[in-house]
């Protein structure tokens, strides 16, 4: 057949497209099982870092991660009331899927949408550190808009439910080499020991450049120069998730529970 006839062009185009799509989908299908496993362990690693149970995401092998992860108790929290929901399959709850499901999510009023999310799930999966009643601390999932992308991570609070134990982010697509410097271990380590709430229980934590009249150093993490927007958005998203609209009521309950004899 003449190579330049329209029929030949169409045949070649369709043929190549077909073969290529079969190859791509075959790879995808073959890789799905290991993919799913890898993602779970990867998240568990970051939960451990935020909970102060692992120095960095790559510190332990998979078995060690699983063993340490089992020490935590996953709890499904109703964010509006702060009540722990009884759900046997809590550990497999998919908050991201829930956040786009109209049934399982609520719209966030514009003026209160610090993390620029639009909607959030009604429930969130938190992890209690032993002894599992809040007096050991808690790891909470957070996410919000950075400069270009949605950033997902965990923040861990110590036994007083105020001091930051650790923080770790597992998904982002900020500018490589510029905005993504918020992943540098030294910067994340600077979060440790900062307090979220002031004496009166209001939210004081922020990520900002040091300036006169700003938050005192005990409540402030210095923004990264060159990645100021990303840093400040991360601060805002922590403020949103740990504030009265999200985990605030739950932390209140945990504190009550801890102070009871």
């Amino acid at each position, binding site marked *: 057949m003449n190579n330049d006839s329209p029929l030949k062009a169409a045949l*070649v185009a369709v043929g190549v497209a077909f073969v290529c799509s079969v190859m791509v989908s075959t790879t995808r299908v073959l890789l799905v099982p290991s993919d799913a496993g890898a993602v779970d362990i990867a998240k568990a690693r970051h939960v451990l870092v935020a909970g102060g149970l692992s120095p960095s995401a790559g510190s332990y092998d998979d078995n060690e991660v699983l063993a340490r992860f089992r020490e935590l108790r996953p709890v499904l929290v109703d964010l509006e009331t702060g009540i722990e929901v009884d759900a046997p399959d809590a550990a497999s709850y998919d908050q991201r899927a829930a956040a786009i499901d109209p049934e399982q999510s609520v719209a966030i009023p514009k003026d209160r949408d610090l993390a620029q999310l639009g909607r959030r799930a009604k429930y969130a999966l938190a992890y209690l550190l032993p002894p599992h009643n809040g007096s050991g601390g808690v790891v909470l999932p957070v996410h919000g808009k950075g400069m270009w992308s949605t950033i997902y991570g965990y923040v861990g609070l110590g036994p007083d439910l105020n001091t930051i134990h650790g923080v770790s982010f597992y998904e982002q697509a900020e500018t490589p080499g510029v905005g993504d410097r918020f992943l540098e271990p030294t910067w994340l380590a600077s979060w440790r020991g900062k307090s979220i709430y002031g004496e009166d229980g209001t939210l004081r934590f922020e990520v900002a450049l040091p300036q006169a009249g700003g938050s005192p150093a005990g409540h402030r993490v210095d923004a990264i120069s060159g990645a100021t927007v990303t840093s400040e958005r991360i601060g805002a998203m922590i403020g949103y998730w740990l504030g009265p609209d999200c985990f605030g009521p739950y932390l209140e309950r945990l504190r009550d529970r801890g102070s009871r004899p």
Partner: protein
Amino acid sequence: MRKRDILLRPLVDENPITLQILGICSALAISNTVLTALTMSAALTSVLVFSNLTISLLRRQLPSSVRLIVQVTIVASAVIIVDEILRAYAPEMSRALTVYVGLIITNCIVLGRAEAFAMSHRVGESILDAIGNGLGYSAILVAVAVVRELLGAGSLLGIPILPLAGAGGWFRPVALMLVPASAFFIIALIIWAVRSRRKQQVEAADFRPCDLQERTR
């Protein structure tokens, strides 16, 4: 051209980065650590081999009207497959490379080799050409990454080499090396070094320096 030349010329004499100035985008972004540079090099080389092989096989059947779109489809499929494999088996690395594995689709080296070489050469030669160009790209990327990781973080492949001042040593990391712009300087120095040895790579000046006396007269 001899087979040896097809394989070895892209290393220095026809290096895709230093002579053709292609693939600069990923060379800037992904050269901050040696490990990411090695992974990116492996990803690009495998895509290049696959696309050159396939396109060379199909070269007599490709109508020129749909030639480019077919090439892009083949390259894109190879990139998606490489990306999926990385995601499944090295999720941390896949995150470190962010969008740059996906962007291999638009890497001029891949389409450039397909158009300039695989469309007009036999399969064996096309594979050699792909390996050669992959190695040429890798050599520069890894060289830049060695400089950047050593001076920017005092380590190589994550293993501390220079004792950091922050941890009681004497070495103060050069912050410039952590930003992508530093790769511009390093690549420029490499190009300078290569061209001062291989004069035939020096390009003719685009403009003649302006002669002030001549103008004022």
